[in-house]
């Protein structure tokens, strides 16, 4: 009975944690693709940059401060044994490491995003999407095979920022932190997009020529937008690294951090942040349900392949079904409702006297 209750608790926390992480990434994609129409098929790169901020940059800063010897792989292990006891004594130190990592992640995410989108000066839509995917894959491969960045396929350790908590409470605390960051990101994105800027992004998505004809510099708007989106996505990469207490490049693959966020965005509804929340929550629930019960489902359905492939197949089918039958997603897009527009709506809805 107690085991069952623990399993349920674990499942709920898992749903909340992954909803938080994926909400951050999918909201970032909503800024870029849902609003601005920029088909960023290289979303995983920004998330990887967040992981590099935590495992590559903050780790090196701490290694330098505490004078730990060895290459990044060995030194990160050594650093853990120096820093974790300090965090256990002083929880604020752990939270400071997290805060610093999130800031650096957002910064390098923004810089990478701004550089990453430069090919859009010459490329449009499908060609741009493929190019962004290719750039993302190249950097993913370099990070995976070059052990000097984040330890390549060996990976690196990062400090346990919650080392002051006993193991069973760590998951709960990390979920709360992730939810807190996700809620902050949600309100940031909502404020950014429920404004003339959000409207301008939608206009750019609909027709760049018109926006340009009315004096807006498309390239500048694109750069700013992808920089913001990438900064947001990178925070999820840093958070995830501290959750798993290590950074391995293969974790940040295109399926988990590009394809799935696109699926969640399309499922929930592009250009609608509430839709994104619904899409992410539904997806995470389905994904974890499949992860928990995939062997039972395989046996029940007599599937002729390994259960591990089930989720990829089902989510691939789900993507096709959404695109075919409900391309607008669960919640349809709505106009940008600024206070004066809401006021106009109220005035015009009044019965005529």
């Amino acid at each position: 009975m107690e085991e069952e209750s623990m399993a349920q608790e674990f499942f709920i926390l898992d749903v909340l944690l992954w909803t938080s992480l994926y909400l951050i990434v999918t909201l970032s994609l909503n800024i870029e693709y849902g609003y601005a129409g920029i088909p960023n098929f290289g979303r995983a790169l920004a998330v990887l940059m967040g992981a590099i901020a935590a495992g590559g940059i903050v780790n090196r800063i701490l290694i330098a401060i505490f004078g730990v010897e060895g290459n990044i792989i060995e030194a990160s292990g050594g650093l853990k044994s120096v820093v974790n006891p300090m965090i256990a004594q002083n929880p604020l130190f752990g939270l400071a490491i997290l805060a610093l990592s999130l800031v650096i992640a957002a910064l390098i995410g923004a810089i990478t995003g701004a550089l990453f989108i430069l090919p859009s000066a010459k490329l449009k839509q499908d060609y741009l999407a493929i190019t962004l995917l290719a750039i993302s894959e190249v950097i993913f491969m370099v990070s995976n095979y070059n052990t000097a960045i984040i330890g390549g396929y060996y990976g690196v350790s990062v400090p346990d920022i919650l080392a002051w908590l006993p193991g069973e409470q760590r998951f709960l605390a990390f979920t709360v932190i992730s939810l807190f960051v996700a809620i902050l990101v949600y309100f940031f994105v909502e404020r950014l997009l429920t404004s003339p800027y959000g409207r301008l992004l939608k206009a750019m998505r609909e027709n760049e020529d018109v926006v340009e004809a009315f004096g807006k510099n498309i390239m500048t708007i694109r750069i700013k937008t992808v920089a913001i989106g990438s900064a947001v996505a990178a925070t999820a990469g840093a958070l995830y690294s501290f959750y798993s207490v290590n950074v391995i490049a293969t974790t940040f693959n295109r399926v988990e951090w590009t394809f799935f966020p696109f699926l969640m965005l399309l499922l929930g509804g592009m250009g609608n942040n509430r839709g994104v929340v619904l899409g992410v929550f539904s997806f995470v629930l389905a994904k974890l349900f499949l992860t928990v019960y995939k062997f039972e489902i395989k046996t029940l359905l007599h599937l002729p392949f390994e259960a591990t492939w089930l989720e990829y197949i089902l989510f691939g089918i789900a993507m096709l079904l959404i695109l075919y039958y409900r391309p607008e997603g669960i919640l349809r897009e709505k106009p940008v409702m600024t206070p004066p527009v809401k006021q106009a709506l109220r005035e015009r809805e009044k019965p005529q006297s």
Partner: protein
Amino acid sequence: MEVPKGGITLIIGPNGSGKTTLINVVTGFLKADAGRIIFEGRDITNKAPHDRFKLGIVRTFQTPHPLKKLTVLENLLIADAGYGERVSEALTGKWLKREEDLVDKAFNILNFLGIDHLWSDWAMNLSGGQLRLLEVGRALMCDAKLIIMDEPIAGVAPALAHSILRKLKDLAKEGISFMIVEHRLDIILDYVDRVYVMANGRIVAEGKGREILNNPEVIEVYLGAQG
């Protein structure tokens, strides 16, 4: 050719004569192979479209270019110069006062064009004529010095077409210059100050209002071709 300040300059010519190409070159959507474009004494030949807009040049498109998944009101609100581009303004909410003013201005324009009842409709649901009016409305939103219009009254009912042109005439009196390409000569000629006739990428004649219809060049290249 010359577009005088505070006047309405009409460009006519048969299909394929280069009228829209001329508009694209003047607004920066196409690069000029030769010649220069001078606006208020400044050479703008190599400037980007958004830079020309900042100098006060705005255009409408021959085929209406609605922002389909934006409402009619939103289509007008994006037209204001420099509005909505700053992330810092978006986050601090400094745009609110300007938004209030722009919403009022947009409703006045929509009211004038007779499409204010459609303000909250998606632009993709408008009819062809309504889309034309939307194009005109956007151009009127941005307080431009020179408004370049590609067939602004095509598909618009005659009464409303006259009403639009009267409004343009009033705006011209206030100092705004108009450069218009239009085929509906029966309606537009009474409102224009100068007419240029194009054929095969060149200006072949020029004149004033209905006088141009008596020009033999025009009869041959334009009206002749039409007939």
